[in-house]
């Protein structure tokens, strides 16, 4: 038995992490340049003791084998519809590449998937990647809304109490748990079909869609919007002067635009999308 190798704690941890994060087999991992830079594979027994049943490499392999499974499981929790669309093998493959490019840098898994949509958008190996990236963007909005801080909803009854002359210069403020998304595909319909475990999924062909995602009573809700609704809601959520937002929105509407816009606003306020009106 050769004497232990005198690796410093930083070197030892750097080597072990390089092995664990490697996407191949553990045998490939210990031979890879990142691990080799810290430890010659021939010296591993001088760092990890073999047990009666496992070699030194196999013992590190217990950790290495669990790393990607954990990452896949975490991202599957945040992106169930993307995982469903890609299938278990396809999702695992893309996550393997993703965590190599964007390994977890936080104490929480909550932030691991923050760059997943853009990664999918740029992944040429992913089939129908425009759709998948949009679907991931919607699922990221859902996650953000789920975790956003709680803010009280502006009561629907308050609308009637606002003096008419105050409206033009007023600004609405959305709750913290509110997001809007514009997509090139019908991703909300697809997400809904996955949630309902309906395997007769809607089309994934190109089609512009708009969705509001918000939280009410600690549950996340999604609402399909028309383009005029999206534009109006987006202007309000961005804090545009109410009078200006209404004027812009009315230009694109036929008939009694004022009534229509008021109806939309009343519904959105009733849904708890706004926290206050700043007059």
């Amino acid at each position, binding site marked *: 038995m050769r004497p232990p190798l005198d690796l410093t704690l930083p070197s030892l941890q750097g080597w072990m*992490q390089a092995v664990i994060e490697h996407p191949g087999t553990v045998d490939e991992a210990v031979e890879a340049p990142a691990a080799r830079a810290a430890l010659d594979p021939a010296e591993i027994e001088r*760092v990890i003791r073999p047990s009666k049943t496992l070699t030194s490499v*196999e013992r590190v392999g217990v950790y290495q084998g669990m790393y990607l499974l954990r990452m896949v499981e975490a991202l599957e929790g945040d992106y169930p519809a993307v995982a469903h669309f890609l299938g278990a093998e396809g999702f695992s493959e893309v996550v393997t590449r993703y965590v190599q490019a964007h390994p977890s840098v936080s*104490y*929480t898994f909550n932030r691991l998937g923050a760059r997943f949509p853009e990664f999918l958008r740029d992944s040429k190996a992913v089939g129908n990647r425009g759709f998948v990236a949009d679907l991931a963007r919607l699922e990221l909005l859902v996650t953000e809304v789920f975790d956003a801080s*709680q803010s009280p909803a502006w009561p629907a009854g308050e609308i009637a109490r606002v003096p008419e002359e105050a409206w033009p210069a007023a600004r609405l403020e959305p709750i913290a748990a509110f997001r809007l998304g514009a997509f090139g595909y019908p991703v909300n319909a697809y997400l809904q079909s996955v949630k309902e475990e309906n395997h007769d999924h809607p089309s994934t062909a190109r089609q512009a869609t708009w969705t509001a995602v918000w939280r009410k009573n600690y549950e996340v809700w999604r609402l399909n919007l028309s383009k005029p609704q999206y534009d109006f809601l987006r202007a309000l959520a961005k804090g545009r002067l109410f009078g200006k937002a209404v004027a812009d929105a009315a230009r694109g509407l036929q008939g009694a635009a004022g009534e229509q816009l008021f109806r939309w606003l009343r519904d959105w306020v009733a849904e708890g999308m706004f926290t206050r009106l700043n007059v």
Partner: protein
Amino acid sequence: MKPLSRNRWSFPDLGVGVGLRTAHYAHILEKQPEVDFFEVLSENYMDTGGRPLRVLEQVAERYPIVLHGVSMNIGSTDPLDREHLHKLKSLAARTRALWVSDHLCWTGVAGRNTHDLLPMPLSEEALRHVVARVKAVSDVLERPLILENASTYAEFASSTMPEWEFFGRLMEAADCGMLLDVNNVYVSAFNHGFDPKAYLDAIDPSRVAQYHLAGHTNKGTHIVDTHNDHVIDPVWDLYRHSVARTGNVSTLLEWDADIPEFEVVHAEALKSRAFRLEEKAVAAAS
């Protein structure tokens, strides 16, 4: 040795608890089961203002809470994550947590997190490193840190002492406590070929703030700490053996994969009552 009824910090014996898990939220809020305490995975509640935090607040109104973390990275050579520590402190205050625990391990270096509980070399260098960091963490948290013995699957050739000695010296030098995971002792003993009772007998009973129990998966060549099953009889035997030394200490069952109905998890936890000391034995000891 007389069994002690209290640890050196007078942390109360809360009885028998279970981990608060998402799958059981609705049951707990609706049925309000008679549970002695809940343990909360700290990191799951630090970065959310949504339902998990709301549920935790409701649970904390009714039940004692203890915090248990997996990402303190106490053994890493990376700098301590101050954001994590301050959020942990804030969560502890918000939930009136009776104590805060994490693991003797490292989870990543170079700013990355493998989200695994990686083993420490049991060396003088590692001991000095961890002692300094535990003291720093205790200063930030303004309370003693409680560290759990993790299950380990690899041991380092550079280790110069057994884990129980490392833990004993660490606790003495950094004045921290131990969350003694009896299942982890069993798992590591199997994987490394030591006597689990020797481990338990070497731990200063006055430093044991809490017990953990869990199920595991025996792969034949090694055991993995999977928290996905009932506690096996040899682990119950070890628990009984240890309780005879420490007296009754807050005991928690972990069940984190293939999670069954709440009643099944709670019933498994309550089995520990059969191994805890009778009231009069505790009174005599104290």
